[in-house]
């Protein structure tokens, strides 16, 4: 039992890293990682929401009618996001400024809704909290890594401390939107290469398997004109069911 819980906890950090393996939460990943410290801030804020919402949804899982579960989950998540938003505004105003509109947008961060739908609504409290914590740490670690890469290349600093800025001219493009897409593309390529070496499936599309709206997407696939993203990636995220 203990090792099972440990597995659930470590699952989100590497094996099912929400950003690089499940391809969730791409928007904040690209938007806030202009500095390593912002990556940590965003990661921690999302982790708090993730753990709290997983806890509450797991407690309520037998009371929420199946038909209205998504709106119910969103309401719970939005409640915790508002709490975190107020805390960040009160205690770390600089972070509030850096994250801007992406702080309230944690509500629609697919990671949180996906974990509520795929894990917390089916499991008891302790595993759900551990899953939220593991996924949150995986999210934070990836965001921080990406923030460090972009900050080092784009500003020559790490966590605000000058590293290479005086030796090499920083390439500001890495702080601008194209740099975000580029660094993320390379990170996914590296993570795919590692996965391939270990004989795991390579991530080719967005993580629709974990997307709460995938029912609609699958209809689109049946209609035959949308990307096959939804069917292809179905296997990747289903390890813990």
């Amino acid at each position, binding site marked *: 039992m203990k090792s099972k819980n440990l597995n659930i906890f470590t699952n989100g950090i590497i094996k099912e890293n929400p950003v690089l393996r499940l391809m969730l939460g791409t928007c904040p990943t690209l938007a806030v990682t202009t500095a390593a410290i912002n990556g940590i801030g965003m990661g921690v804020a999302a982790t708090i929401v993730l753990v709290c919402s997983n806890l509450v949804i797991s407690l309520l899982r037998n009371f929420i009618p199946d038909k209205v579960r*998504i709106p119910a989950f*969103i309401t719970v998540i*939005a409640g915790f*996001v508002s709490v975190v938003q107020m805390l960040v505004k009160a205690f770390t105003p600089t972070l509030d400024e850096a994250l801007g509109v992406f702080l*309230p947008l944690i509500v*629609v961060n697919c990671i949180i809704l996906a974990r509520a739908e795929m894990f917390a609504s089916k499991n008891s409290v302790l595993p759900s909290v551990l899953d939220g914590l593991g996924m949150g740490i995986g999210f934070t670690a990836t965001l921080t890594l990406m923030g460090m890469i972009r900050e080092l290349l784009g500003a020559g600093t790490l966590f605000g401390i000058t590293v290479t800025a005086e030796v090499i001219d920083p390439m500001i493009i890495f702080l601008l939107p194209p740099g975000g897409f580029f660094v993320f*593309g390379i990170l996914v390529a590296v993570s795919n290469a590692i996965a391939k070496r270990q004989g795991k499936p390579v991530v080719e599309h967005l993580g629709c398997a974990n997307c709460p*709206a995938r029912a609609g997407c699958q209809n689109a696939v049946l209609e035959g004109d949308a990307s096959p*993203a939804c069917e292809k990636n179905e296997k990747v995220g289903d390890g813990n069911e």
Partner: protein
Amino acid sequence: MSSTTSIVAILLAGILTENMVLSRFMGICPFLGVSKKVNTAFSMSIAVTLVMVIATAVTHPIYTYFLLPNELEYLQTVVFILVIAAIVQLIEIVLKKYIKPIYNALGIYLPLITTNCAVLGITTINIDDGLNFGLSLVNALAAGIGFMLAMILFAGVRSKLDTADVPEFLKGLPITLIAAAIVALSFLGFAGIGG
């Protein structure tokens, strides 16, 4: 600044310089997921634009006339996301009942839009920037058109990508992201337009 110039400035910013997808990073999921074909990308962006404008038209008065006077601003996020979810459902029902052809074309994309951060994003940005009702609508429309422009341009790029000789380790999602980086790079050229 007179109101016409500010409308033009908002339109230019929303479509080009502050493009929803390529510079604000909102709606990345549909941008990468539903951009394989130009016509799908077009339908999806029409649906997003429609929801953005209607959502702004509903959330802005709610904030101004209900949340603000009652000092309930802290409920903004909760109320907005629920209103957006309800609106998406309503639009779906209304289209299904009365405008069947449009429903057939857009219906499958509507459920995807509730959790699309671009919609909640634009309604929140309108409030944060303190825009009045009219300018908020213009801003939402501009963001929608910007989304459409990015989607269609990117769908065009991706159709070329299918036949391109891509290095093995970049195949799949990585090269798509790098292509997005190049499209975003081209949008940097607009920086400075419209102040």
